[in-house]
């Protein structure tokens, strides 16, 4: 029996994830509290994205448990679709529906899944679009948008479902550098609104700015976690130090 505290939104308890014989995540425990912004960092292949996908039930787990407000997250359970509506997810490659307009992309799930009224959903979608500066694109198709614009639409699509927690899976990894900022600024404003977010990213200065708590993952286990100032200024473990060093370069000393 797992004890659930009132403000615990997502509780991962001794979870293990395997692909066939490969263990991706082993015995990982992590709790996301309401209103908290947790940033997960770590080298490629450390299991960050897999962890996010497990939180949404997109990947089955082989051990332990993941609960959302005390309800078990299991891709095969009958309630999974109700739980998923309350967990928003934004993907690295946007995953917008190519044959639907921007507005249709955003309103599809609220209308079809949540059975909300079309007029009300469209009004909200338009409000959200104007907040990210994309209202004039509402009748365009995804191919007519830049990567940064598509990702902002994907964020609006997730928001329109009124999720209680948002999962961001390397949302700027596929973007050109100048478009990274426009997307991260949306995330920063969501953090200011007090939204609960779990963010997987490689943007270290952004992580430092947005996070309440940084979790450093390596080889499928949490190596270190703490406040961003502590983690980025004084990483305790050698592995974290080594990882953070990969983001800085020494000045070239030219041979005379």
């Amino acid at each position, binding site marked *: 029996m797992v004890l659930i505290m009132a403000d615990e939104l997502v509780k991962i308890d001794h979870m293990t994830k395997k692909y066939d014989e490969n263990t991706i995540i082993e015995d990982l425990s992590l709790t996301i509290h309401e209103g908290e912004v947790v940033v997960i960092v770590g080298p490629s292949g450390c299991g960050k994205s897999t962890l996010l996908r497990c939180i949404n039930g997109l990947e089955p787990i082989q051990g332990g448990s993941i609960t959302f407000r005390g309800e078990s997250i299991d891709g095969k359970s009958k309630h999974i*679709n109700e739980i998923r509506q309350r967990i928003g997810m934004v993907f690295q490659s946007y995953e917008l529906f190519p044959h639907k307009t921007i507005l249709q992309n955003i309103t599809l799930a609220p209308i*079809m899944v949540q059975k909300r009224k079309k007029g009300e959903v469209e009004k909200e979608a338009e409000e959200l679009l104007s907040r990210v500066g994309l209202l004039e694109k509402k009748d365009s198709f995804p191919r007519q948008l830049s990567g940064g614009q598509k990702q902002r639409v994907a964020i609006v699509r997730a928001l329109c*479902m009124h999720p209680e927690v948002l999962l961001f899976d390397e949302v700027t990894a596929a973007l050109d550098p100048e478009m990274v900022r426009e997307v991260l600024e949306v995330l920063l404003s969501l953090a200011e609104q007090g939204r609960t977010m779990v963010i997987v990213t490689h943007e270290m200065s952004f992580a430092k700015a947005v996070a309440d708590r940084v979790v450093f993952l390596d080889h499928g286990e949490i190596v270190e976690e703490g406040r961003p100032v502590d983690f980025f200024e004084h990483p305790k473990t050698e592995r974290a130090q080594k990882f953070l060093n990969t983001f800085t370069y020494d000045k070239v000393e030219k041979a005379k």
Partner: protein
Amino acid sequence: METSDIFRMLWAGTGETLLMVFASTALGYVIGLPVGVLLTISDTDGICPHPLLYKILDIIINITRSIPFLILLILIQPFTKFVVGKSYGTVATIVPLTIAAVPFIARMVEGSLKEVDHGVVEAALSMGAGKMTIVIKVLIAEARTSLLVGVTIALGTILGYSAMAGIVGGGGLGDIAIRYGYYRYETGIMLITVLVLVILMQVLQWLGTLLSKKLDRRRG
């Protein structure tokens, strides 16, 4: 034969051919589309994997597809007679044509639906969409260009099959080509009939391509 008689005969034959082709393709989709959907979602990477169901459908489709159409036509004659009351003529030919079309259409639908990026299916799943919503609003809606190309290919293939049915008195243009061109050595009529078939195929293909381009939102 007078020229006007030949024209009248070809006109009627074209009508019969079009009736056979469109009716059996439509009926083929009524059964083939759901089967193609089942194949797509029951496969190992589908939204409700069911290896046994997939294997059974897979085997049935492979068996029916490997029977040559002419043999199928003769093999199921008793069934055709049972359904429409006789085993020859335009309406009767719709039965074997439909049976030949179903597995073919199911395979093409499967191919089209599997082209839909798994990422957008996951996006729909992550928003809590149910299986029906995903099938209709994501898989079929996003694959529509490819599905339409499939309809064009199906119509063309069935048009070819329908001409074969002429051998057993199936009606339509194929029937005319065989009766006059082959049995009576009237090469002229045979060539004109073939020409009409060529024109029909061209028109179908042109319409299909036009329509699928119009519905494609990924380019433009």
